[in-house]
């Protein structure tokens, strides 16, 4: 009983302990402004990581999320910068992300390219288009408030970014845990052949999951551009390793060994707490990367230990 509880909540408790450590170590850490800052930064990472989680639920990996988000941000930024109606620009960013995700899905399920390779290919293409559109120069400007409010505004006194994160997180959790479609996504990832024999359209499920991952990248892009009033190639790349770390760390809690939305969200928050806390304690910037890499290694090891099974990578479809 205790062992099972520790397996499910041990990492989360470690996250709480980390939170307490920084709260004791820095007088600024627990201030409402700082907590809001951490939550807002969690929004970008969390939404991107939710997309990665959905792909992983079907045992596929999406390495294109950051480059796709950068391209979607560039497209959005270019349109806003050029004076296009901001809502059309937002729609375009979302469509670009979704289409890139759909391209990943087609490459994996129709062309039978392993997702590890297919998404790397799409990432490279997205990166190329980003530079083609910008010629390497960022779109920066005084953009309309109707656009920047998407990320910078508040609703009922709560920053919009937190609402976005809560909304996407809740929708993804509802989808995976409480809908038939979600059950089919999970079954596809857990036992592809058994699911197919039970009548589940497993290829469609993988296409859907990868498309949703692209859509999440698109939304992250729109919010990033809105928040920064700028759009540049590779602007989401800093979030890439963090998103993977959030998903892997999330797999070591709540449902050990499985990609799960609450775990991803909690882990994303914990990673941002870590980054924020280290800065407040005066740690050099490179410590964040060192700690991040360590977290990726430890979380995969933890998820393997928690389930008594090899970690998720064993389930990924490297062969077609």
């Amino acid at each position, binding site marked *: 009983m205790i062992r099972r509880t520790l397996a499910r909540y041990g990492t989360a408790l470690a996250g709480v302990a980390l939170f307490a450590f920084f709260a004791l170590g820095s007088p600024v850490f627990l201030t409402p402004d700082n907590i809001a800052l951490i939550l807002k930064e969690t929004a970008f990472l969390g939404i991107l990581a939710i997309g990665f989680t959905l792909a992983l639920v079907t045992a596929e990996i999406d390495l294109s999320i950051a480059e796709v988000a950068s391209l979607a941000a560039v497209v959005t930024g270019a349109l806003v910068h050029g004076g296009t109606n901001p809502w059309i620009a937002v729609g375009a960013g979302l469509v670009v992300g979704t289409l890139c995700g759909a391209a990943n899905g087609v490459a994996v399920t129709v062309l039978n390219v392993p997702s590890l390779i297919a998404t790397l290919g799409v990432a490279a293409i997205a990166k190329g288009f980003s530079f083609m559109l910008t010629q390497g120069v960022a779109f920066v400007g005084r953009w309309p408030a109707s656009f920047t409010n998407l990320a910078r505004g508040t609703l009922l006194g709560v920053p919009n970014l937190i609402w976005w994160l809560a909304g996407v997180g809740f929708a993804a959790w*509802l989808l995976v*845990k*409480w*809908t*038939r479609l979600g*059950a*089919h996504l*999970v*079954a596809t990832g*857990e*036992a592809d*052949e*058994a*699911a197919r*024999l*039970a*009548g*589940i359209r497993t290829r469609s499920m993988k296409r859907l999951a990868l498309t949703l991952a692209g859509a999440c990248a698109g939304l992250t892009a729109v919010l990033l551009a809105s928040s920064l009033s700028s759009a540049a190639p590779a602007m989401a790349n800093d979030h890439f390793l963090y998103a993977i770390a959030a998903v892997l760390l999330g797999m070591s809690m709540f449902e050990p*060994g*499985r990609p799960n939305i609450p775990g991803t969200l909690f882990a994303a928050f914990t990673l941002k707490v870590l980054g924020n806390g280290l800065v407040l304690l005066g740690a050099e910037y490179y410590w964040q990367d060192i700690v991040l890499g360590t977290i990726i290694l430890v979380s995969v090891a933890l998820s393997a230990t928690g389930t008594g099974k090899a970690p998720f990578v064993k389930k990924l479809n490297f062969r077609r």
Partner: protein
Amino acid sequence: MTSLLSLRGIGMSYGAVTALRDVNLDIAAGEVVALCGDNGAGKSSLVKILAGAQAPTAGTIMLDDTNERFRDPQDALRKGIATIYQDLAVAPRLSIWQNVFLGSELTRPPFGLLDKRRMAEMSRGFLARLAVDIADMETPVERLSGGQRQAVAICRALRWDARIIIMDEPTAALGVKETAQVLDLIRRLHAEKHTVILVSHAMQDVVAVADRVVILRGGRKVEDRPVAGLTAGDLAAMIMQRAA
């Protein structure tokens, strides 16, 4: 006795290779029919055809005197034929109820969300029909014994109210105790008037539960007779004799 399932002139070819030739078979409702034969005899091809996993290249399938052609496994399932594959029957890390309702989950109004409680209750009921006692329906199937896993797979067939249940090597890789459990499950299905097609290499299992044995050799049906009075050794000899 009228036939629930009738196969007439079933043939299956993979390019130049012929797996089944002119197979005729009648199975009555409530029968337990064992399908036996050496490797390459055509058992797997016949099971795939009945399961809807592939279409025959020749012949007709009559179910309740109606000519049927299964588009896919789901279509066969909808028409009352459930197949339990040896290794692929269950999703190990999913719970019992998730496995029982795999691909056919129940939802509840008004939002169409999963009705987990009802699925768990129904799964418990199906297991009770098979006299299998497992307390927690949230238990991942990987934590169950081999016999219990087969029971979960059978419950999926019961959930579909399948009239014909095809069991592909259900006791392969099972210990003595678990094999006995699985044979008991088949007896209970028999008692409930389900039709069972048992594909097995274990002749002692065939003798223990089957009413009739059908032996395939080189894609042809070479034997079709009641099991009563036969021993496992007799059946093995029949397969070997024909193979010689």
